[in-house]
C-alpha cells in the first residue's frame, strides 16, 4: 500500500502555460480529455502516431476514472525537463486500487473489461507512475518524451 500523497502544482494554484484540466464526470468528458491531449501534443510537435498514442492513453485513464471512481480529473501539460515532452495526470478521489501489482497484469480486471488498460497504457508511454491508496484515491502520472 502506498501512502504517498500527491503534492505538486496540480493541487495548488500554480498556472502553467499550456496546461489544461478536464473534469471527468461522464462519457463525453473522455472525448474532451483526449482531444485536449492530442491538441497539446500537436502543439508540442509530437508525430501524428505519438499524438494518437497519447490520446489513447488519456482515453484509457479517463475511462478508469469513470468506471472505478465515477469522478476525477485529467491534467495535461507540457514538460520541459531538459527535453521536451508531455505530462498527463489522471487523478481521482475514488476507492483506490487494493493490489496495484495485480492491476498492472495483462488480462486482470475487476470490471469485466479486457484488463489491458493499465499495462497497455504503461507500454505506450515513456514514464508511468501509479500512486493509489484504498479509500483515498488514485493518481496516475505519465510522460512521453519527444523523440
Amino acid at each position, binding site marked *: 500500500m502506498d501512502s504517498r500523497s500527491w503534492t505538486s502544482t496540480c493541487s495548488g494554484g500554480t498556472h502553467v502555460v499550456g496546461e489544461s484540466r478536464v473534469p471527468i464526470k461522464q462519457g463525453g468528458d473522455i472525448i474532451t480529455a483526449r482531444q485536449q491531449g492530442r491538441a497539446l501534443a500537436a502543439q508540442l510537435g509530437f508525430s501524428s502516431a505519438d499524438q494518437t*498514442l497519447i490520446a*489513447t492513453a488519456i482515453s484509457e485513464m479517463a*475511462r478508469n476514472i469513470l468506471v472505478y471512481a465515477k469522478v476525477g480529473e485529467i491534467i495535461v501539460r507540457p514538460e520541459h525537463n531538459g527535453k521536451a515532452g508531455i505530462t498527463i495526470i489522471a487523478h481521482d478521489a475514488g476507492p483506490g486500487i487494493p493490489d496495484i501489482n495485480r492491476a498492472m497484469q495483462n488480462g486482470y480486471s475487476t470490471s469485466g473489461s*479486457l484488463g489491458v488498460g493499465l499495462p*497497455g497504457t504503461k507500454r505506450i508511454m515513456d514514464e508511468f507512475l501509479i500512486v493509489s491508496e484504498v479509500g483515498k484515491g488514485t493518481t496516475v502520472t505519465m510522460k512521453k518524451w519527444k523523440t
Partner: protein
Amino acid sequence: MRVPILKQGSYLIASIQDALSDEDLAQLQQELVARVGQARTRGVIIDVTALDVMDSFACRTLRDLAHTITLRGAETVIVGIQPDVAFALVRLGLSLSGAQTALDLEDGLALLDQHLQRGNTRGR
C-alpha cells in the same frame, strides 16, 4: 451522436462520423443487431475511418458487435482503421480477434460479395 446506418441490398453500412462516446457505441451495437433481423441482412460494414482513437473499450465493443452479428447470421467487416490507430492498437496489445477487416468501404463490400458469392448481383 448517432451513427447513420444505410441499407444497400442485403448489406447494412454503419458510417461512424465522429468521435463516439461509450454510450454511442453501445447504442450502435443494439441498433445494428436489431436491424440485422428486420432487414434480413447478410453482411454489415462498420466504417471507422473517422475514429482517431480506438481504446480498449471501443475495441471490445466492436469485437462483441461483430461476434453478435455473426450469431445473428450475418457477416461483419470493419473498414477504415487509420494507420496511427492500427499502430496504437498493436502497441496496446489489443486485437479485433474474430472480426474481419478491410482497407476501406470498397474493399469491405468486395470482401462481403466474395464471401457471400453474390458477385455482381448485389442490389443498389
